[in-house]
Structures are given as C-alpha cells and as structure tokens.
C-alpha cells in the first residue's frame, strides 16, 4: 500500500517515516480488513465514541447499518482469552467495525518491519546508488525545461527594502558604523628615524642598472630587406674589429620561426650583460627640470611704465645731407642740427619750422647747446674747427649775458698761449651777422664737442691713434685750451663731463676711463666687453653710464657696482650710433644703423642695494635707410618724454 514516489530524494524518506509512526493497530487493521472481507464503514475518520449510544456503528457501502457485535466479553473473558487463545497476540480490535481481526504471518512480518524502521516492501533496496539529477553540472538536456523565473534576474524587492531601511538608519544615526581600532600606532616604528641623514642620503643614491636596449628590426628573424646586409656591408662587418662593429651580429632572414637555429651568442651576451651591470657607471645624472618661462626675470609691463615716446609726431625736413648731430636747447624750445650739407639749422620744436640756417662751410660732425639756461650758445664741430654760435633765439637778457661771456676775455689780458696748437679767433663781417662768434682752430679734425654742465668749459675730441693730443678742454670765459692727458691710452671715441662732480669720462675703443679733474688722476676704468665703442651717455644722477658700440651692444654700467657692465642689451640688429639719457624721466634711448630707436625704461634707485630696473619699452621706426646708415643721433627733450632722432635720410624725427 505504501509506494515511495520519486518526486524528490529527501521527501521519500520522511514520508516513509511518517507512515511508520502512524502505523497504529487500527490503521493496519483497516488495511487488512479491506483485504480480507469488504465490510467497510463509510462514516470516515471520526471519533467512534460518537456512535457509543447507538446500536450500530456506521453504514456499509449499501447504506445498511453495521450493527455493533454483541460485546459480552468482560475482563475475565479477556483474561482467559489472553491465557488460552494462542492467537491472542496477533488479534487486533477493529474499532470501526467492532470486530476482532487475527493478523496473518505476512501482516505481522510487515508490522515488525515497520516497527524496526525498515521499508514495508521487502524487495525495496534503500541503498541503491543515487542518481544526481540536480547538480551544478550543466546538462545538455535539462531535466526540466522551465524557463528561469523572473525573480532570478531582477533585484529582490525585499532586499532592496531592507537595504534602504539600513541606509536610512545609518543616515539618521541610529546605526553607528563599526569603530575601526586604531592599532597602527604602536605596532610599527620608524627604524631609521634616529639614523644620520648622510647615511639616509647614501641609501637614496640608488642607481638602477642600465637597461638592455629593446630588440629592433635587426634582431627580427624576418627583417625587412633594407635591414639585411649587402655584400659590401657584410665584408665591411667582417673586416671590422668586434669593438667597432655597429651591430654585434649579422641580421638574417628565415622563412619561418621554426627554422631559426639556437642563438650561438647567448652565453657571450649574458656575460657581456653581467659585465655591464658590474661596470656600469655609478654616477647620478642630475637632470634639471626647469620651465624656460621661469628663467625670464619678472619685468613690469611697458604699459605701466608710461610716459615714454610711442609715435612719430613731427618730421623736421630741410637738410640735404645726412644729419650727424642734434641738440635741444635747455629750455626745450629749439632744436639745433648739424648736417653733412654744411649747415647748422635751428628748428622750433613744437611746429617743426626751421627758424634759422647757418652755413658753416663743412660737414658738421657735432653740435651741442650750452646746458646753462642763462646763456644761449651752440658749439659746432666741423673739420678741425669748433665754432661757437650765438643763435639769438632767447630772451634779450640771455642773449646779452651770452655775448658778455664771449667778450669777457677782451677786457682782460692777452690769451694765455699754453700750447700753440689751438688758436682762438673771433668771427668777423658776414659771419658775425649769421651768429658766429668764436672759432677755435684745432690741429686735427674734431669729432665731438661737449659742454660741461656749468656751461663755461667745453671739451673736444680729435681721434688720433698716434698722439696724446686727442682731447682738449676749453674754457670759454678765459679763452684757454688745455690738453689734460700726457699719454696716449688708445683711440678716443667720445668724452663726457660728469653732470655734478669734477669727473671726466673718456671712452676709447674698448674701455671707458674716468678721471678726476681735481686730483688729476684716473679713478676707474670700465671694461665694456665690446669691440668698438661708438657713443656714451652719463646718467643725470652721475652714477650710471650707458655706452653703445658698433657691435650692436648697449652696456649699462653701475659705477658703484662694478667696472663690468651691469647689463648688456643686444636689441639692435646693427651698430649702435647714439645713446642718450633723459634728464628727468627714467628713460634712455639708443639709435642704430638698422633705422630704429629703442627706448628703454631705466629706473635708478637711491638705495644702493637695489639694482637699476631696465625694461625695453618701445622700438621707434621713422627713418629710411640711406647708404646703409639709419639713425645717427638721438637726444631727449629736456622736459617732456619726447625723443628726437636724426637720420641719414636728412630728416629729424620727434617721437612723442
């Protein structure tokens, strides 16, 4: 009656055990009864005491009452029966029918088996080998063809709810995260903390071994044909000393990798590598990682350094030859220019009108206004003469005082003839009307003439490599000339007076000498590092000198700092012809043969520790290149930030 189903392996056992426990006498009897006689009560599984008071005990299949058997057995009968009847132990009472049933041997055997916990069927082998239908192995033919549930591939809603609850709890602070034990402190310690830093530094000096170069196309078993040796190359390779060879092997070509023979040089190559490692140069290469931008000094923007000249405003036209020299009157109203056409012209600065032209009869090398504002005189150098002009372009008082300065000597004694080489003479006749006053005849061609700041002395240069008579200092009021130098120190290029102190600057080809006129000795010699000095200007403060040279350089000297240039500016493409400082503004300019004037800002600080700030601010172009000459002279306006430049194209430009 109990047949194990094969639904699932585990439930088979449990159902069998269930049957086993339920197997009380009545159930078995029911089954047995059904087998023997088909007296069946149809009341079902109800408590039979419900029929206690009735004569019948239930109904059979036909609906007829099953009557209770006449129970006349009492305890004694039962006892007797127990004693006498040998079948008593296998007799069971069937409550539903109320009759006694005697179990057969098979039935008793079944009951015994069940009570021992064995299967009811004798033939059932409970130790049959298990067939693993449901395992991790994927079968080709699945046991069931049921598609996967949806829940197997969508996130679980319950899990999600649970997680969100946890998250909310963590957010609200109801759940505190687990505290991490801070146990790292005591467990480790810095072994090298007390170590000397030099030893540490030695540890840091680890040098990685040189790397083996990666193989290239040469090493390939099937290199491109251009990598294979030609006959000549192979001959050359064989001739060469092994140390000189570019490659330590001959590249070869194989049709497939299979045919590549064993590498004959393997041991040798390993050995070489070991030698490399052993003898590798143990030297740290200091690589400098510097941004080139950082090396450029921080300079202020030119825009912040206003005012400085920016545009060409006026052009003074009228000369017919190249204008070698210009000079602005101390008031800033007049401009004098000397040209190769043999004339000196006076211009009104603000209107560019030529007010006066004086024909001097010779190419004018240099002009210079007397810097003293109470006199109005111009010194002109041409050929071997220095002329003193009185242009009478000033107040009558000023003209008068300048005339007086020139004529002061006449009332005095005879001119002291210190050295007969310089002859002073007065202008006469027509020249007097033109404004010429004095002529100072020199023995040689005069190159440059400069005034002392007081306006009484002027110095002239006659460049001559062979003589010591290169510089003369003239005193106007006493009409005296003297040569301050007794020895020739080189070809004098230009000279300048110190604006305040009694110093005298003499620039020879490669150096600038500074002489103290009172002590009559040389105080300093500045080395310019340039090949040929062309021009020089002294800062109005007197502590700085700029000097231009024919090798395109402009050097700035700080006299308190050194005899070497503080700064070299190489902005010009061609020879620098003229340099100038502004009297009031922190500006200086340089004129060059490339036709440009470069204006630089040069602030000088009173603080000796602070170096001058030099910033190039503007390149001014306005002159046309003529005969490979550009700008010949440059000078600043005395009060405004304006710069004048004179060029080989016979014009003068004013940049404002």
């Amino acid at each position, binding site marked *: 009656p109990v047949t194990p189903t094969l639904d699932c392996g585990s439930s088979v056992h449990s159902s069998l055990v269930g049957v086993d426990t339920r197997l009380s006498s009545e159930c078995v009897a029911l089954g047995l009864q059904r087998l023997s006689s088909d007296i069946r009560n149809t009341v079902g599984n109800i408590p039979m005491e419900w029929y206690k008071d009735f004569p019948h005990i239930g109904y059979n299949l036909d609906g007829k009452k099953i009557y209770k058997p006449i129970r006349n057995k009492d305890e004694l009968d039962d006892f007797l029966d127990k004693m006498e009847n040998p079948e008593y132990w296998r007799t069971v009472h069937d409550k539903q029918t109320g009759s006694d049933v005697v179990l057969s041997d098979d039935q008793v055997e079944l009951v015994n088996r069940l009570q021992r916990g064995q299967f009811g069927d004798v033939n059932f082998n409970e130790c049959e080998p298990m067939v693993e239908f449901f395992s991790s192995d994927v079968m080709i033919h699945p046991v069931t063809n049921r598609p996967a549930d949806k829940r197997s591939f969508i996130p679980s809603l319950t899990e999600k709810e649970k997680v969100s609850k946890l998250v909310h709890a963590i957010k609200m602070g109801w759940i505190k995260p687990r505290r991490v034990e801070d146990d790292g402190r005591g467990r480790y310690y810095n072994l090298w903390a007390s170590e000397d830093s030099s030893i540490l530094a030695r540890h840091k000096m680890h040098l990685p071994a040189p790397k083996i170069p990666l193989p290239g196309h040469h090493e390939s078993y099937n290199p491109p044909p251009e990598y294979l040796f030609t006959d000549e190359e192979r001959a050359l390779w064989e001739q060469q000393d092994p140390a000189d060879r570019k490659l330590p092997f001959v590249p070869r070509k194989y049709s497939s990798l299979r045919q590549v023979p064993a590498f004959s040089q393997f041991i040798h190559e390993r050995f070489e590598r070991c030698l490399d490692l052993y003898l590798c140069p143990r030297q740290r290469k200091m690589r400098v990682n510097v941004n080139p931008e950082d090396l450029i000094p921080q300079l202020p923007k030119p825009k912040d350094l206003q005012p400085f000249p920016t545009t060409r*405003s006026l052009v003074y036209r009228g000369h017919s030859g190249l204008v070698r020299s210009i000079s602005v009157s101390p008031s*800033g*109203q007049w401009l004098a220019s000397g040209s190769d056409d043999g004339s000196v012209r006076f211009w009104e600065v603000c*209107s*560019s*009108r030529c007010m006066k032209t004086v024909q001097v009869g010779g190419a004018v090398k240099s002009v210079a206004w007397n810097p003293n504002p109470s006199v109005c005189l111009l010194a002109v150098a041409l050929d071997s003469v220095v002329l003193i002009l009185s242009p009478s372009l000033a*107040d009558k008082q000023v003209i008068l005082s300048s005339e007086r300065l020139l004529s002061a000597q006449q009332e005095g004694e005879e001119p002291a003839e210190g050295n007969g080489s310089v002859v002073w003479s007065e202008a006469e006749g027509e020249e007097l009307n033109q404004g010429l006053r004095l002529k100072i005849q020199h023995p040689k061609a005069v190159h440059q003439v400069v005034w002392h700041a007081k306006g009484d002395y002027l110095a002239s240069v006659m460049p001559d490599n062979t003589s010591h008579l290169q510089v003369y200092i003239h005193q106007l009021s006493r009409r005296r000339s003297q040569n301050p130098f007794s020895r020739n120190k080189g070809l004098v290029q230009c000279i300048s007076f110190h604006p305040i102190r009694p110093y005298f600057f003499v620039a020879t080809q490669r150096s600038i000498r500074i002489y103290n006129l009172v002590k009559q000795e040389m105080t300093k010699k500045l080395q310019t590092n340039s090949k040929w000095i062309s021009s020089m200007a002294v800062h109005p403060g007197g502590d700085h000198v700029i000097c231009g040279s024919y090798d395109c350089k402009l050097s700035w000297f700080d006299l308190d700092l050194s005899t070497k240039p503080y700064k070299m500016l190489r902005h010009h493409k061609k020879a620098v012809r003229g340099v100038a400082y502004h009297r009031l503004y922190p500006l200086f300019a340089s004129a060059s043969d490339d036709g440009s004037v470069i204006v630089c800002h040069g602030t000088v600080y009173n603080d000796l520790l602070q170096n001058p700030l030099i910033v190039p601010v503007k390149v001014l172009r306005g002159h046309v290149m003529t005969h490979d000459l550009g700008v010949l002279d440059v000078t600043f306006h005395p009060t405004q930030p304006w710069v004048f430049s004179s060029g080989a194209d016979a014009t003068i430009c004013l940049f*404002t």
Partner: protein
Amino acid sequence: MSQIQARFFTEDKRYVVDDVPFSIPAASEVQDLSNVINKLLEAKNGNKVDFDFLVRGQFLRTSLSTHMATEGISTVWILTGSYDKTARIWSTEGKPAMTVAGHTDVVKDVAWVKREGLTSLLLTASLDQTVLLWEWNSERNKVKARHCCRGHAGSVDTISVDPTGTKFCSGSWDKMLKIWSAVPTDEQDEIEEPADRPRKKQKTQQLGLTRTPLMTLSGHSEAVSSVLWCDSEEVCSASWDHTIRIWDVDTGGMKTTLTGSKVFNCISYSPLCRRLASGSTDRHIRLWDPRTKDGSLVLLSLTSHTGWVTAVKWAPSHAHQLVSGSLDNLVKLWDTRSCKAPLYDLAAHEDKVFCVDWTESGLMLSGGADNKLYTYRYSAQQAEA
C-alpha cells in the same frame, strides 16, 4: 548785422553831405537812403530829390544787405598771423585787405579787440616777446600801432581778449600769464629800464607806446600754450606742464587745476555747453568740466586724429559742435553727441594745420603750414571748402 556804416559822396556840389560815416539799417533800400539824404540836405535846400546810389560802381537796386551779399562786399574780416613776421587781414572771400607788419619775429597769435565800426582794434603776439595793439581803419585801410606790450621774457604764444573788450591776457613760453589793458590811450606806461642796457639799443624803432602788464599770473612750470577767458573774471590757461589752470583775475589767484597726462596744445571754452575742449600731443580731444574742483576728470575723449591736435574751437552758436585741426593735415568737425567719429573730415590742407576758428556766421576757418587759409561753409547737411 543790423547796422551798416556808410559814407555818402557825390560830384554834384549841391548835394554834398558831410564826409562822416553814418550808421544805416542794413535792410534799407534806395528810397530809405534817399530819405536820409533829403533829411540831411533839408537845411540846405528844401525841395525833395530822388537819388540813385552806386555802391562800388554798381547801382543799388535791392536792399543794402542783399546787395552786399550778392556783390560779395563783406564786413567780416579775418585776421591771421604768420611765420613771415606779419599779420594779415582778409575778407571772407579770401581777398587780402591789409598786411600788418611791425614785429621783428614770428607772429604767434592774433586777436580782435573790436571789429565793429570803421576803426577796429587788433592784437598780435610774437616770438619777439611783445604784443602789439593795432588800430585799423577799415575805410582808409590804414593800420597804426598804438601800444607795444612789453614784459614777457619769452615768446608770446597765445593771447585772448576778455568778453568786455577792455582787457586781454597773454601766455608765454616764460611760463607766465599777463593781463593787460586793451583800451588804447595816449599815455605811455613807465617802464623800468635795465641799468646795464646799452644806450644805443634804447633807440630802436618803437612801434606804439609801451604798455606794462596789469597783473602777472605765475604758477605753470612749463610754457603756456593756450589761454582764454571763461567769463570776464576767469582766465583759463593750458600749458606744457600737462595742466589746465583756471585763474581768478580779480585776485590773481589760481582757482582750479585740471591735470592731464600729455602736453596741452590748445583749449577752447564754450559758454553754451560750459565745457572745455583740449587738444594735446597725443591724438585725443578731451572735454572737461571746468567747474569741478577736484579736476582731472575727462568727460569725453574724441579720437580720430592721428597726429597732435594743434587747435580746437567750439562753434559760437552751437552747443555741440567743435572743429579741430591736427598735424595730420586734417580739420575735423565734431558733434559731441556722436563722439565715436567726426561729422566731417575737411582734408584741404597739404601740411600741418595750426589754427582753426569760426566766424559768427558759422564759417569755419583753418590755417596751416602750407601757407593757406581755408574757409569752410557748413550748412545743414553739407560742407564745402
């Protein structure tokens, strides 16, 4: 122009009237003029005569004003000063009327003191450090130097006559401003002679009577380039020291300083809009409010020139128009309401423009380094040179 100075003459002895100028309404016609003559001759002969009139050889047929306009007879004169040491008077048609020569050096500035009537007063300032006050009789075309104003120690670059015509102010390269009387008198001011001046130089030809300044205003640190009267008590001056200063003439003190960043070449003041316009050695024209106390506030910059602005002038009858001249050979007419670009570029000059001005009738004038004086007419929408 409501009244015209006229002089009547005839060859007929009977109708001769006094040879003096009469002031006659400009609108009068032939009949009106006849009535005037009859009125004058009433005493001599009672009967009334109808006269005909010849004006410069032409019969007068319309009103005097229209006749003058059609025949081109002008009463507006233009005064120019030149680097040839002379000043010239021109009619608006460009005919030279008179050459005023007397300076020993370049004439830097000129100004009218009085232009009405037959005798005009005019001023010329020169590089020879003097200002000359001339009297010009337009009818006889005679000019006479009345006064020579001495006192400056540098070239007198600018002069300006005050609105009442009794004083004028001059600015010079010697950084000074001087106020002078513009009224011609017959007395010579005392002048202290420098003791060391040579005697013989004393007797150079002296034009007019010497006059000394009423007042000297000093405060600029550079040359004064332009000067003008804001009203009869205030003088405004521009200088190369990058400042515009406003002075009180009564006290001789400085009232306001406007500081710029560049040299000022010229200023102009318009009483209509009460703004100062300045031209400087950069290429901008700047407008200032002279009443601000703290100064140095530029209301507006007009930028179109490419060279120094050498001259600016406000229109006398228009509150927003000004004309400017520059070293870039251009004269520009501006309207301050369109500050981005000028109304017109007047490109007549072939060289640097040095001065610009307006006439009362709205004619624009400009003079330049090409030795030419141009007049421009600006009517409604068009300008012609």
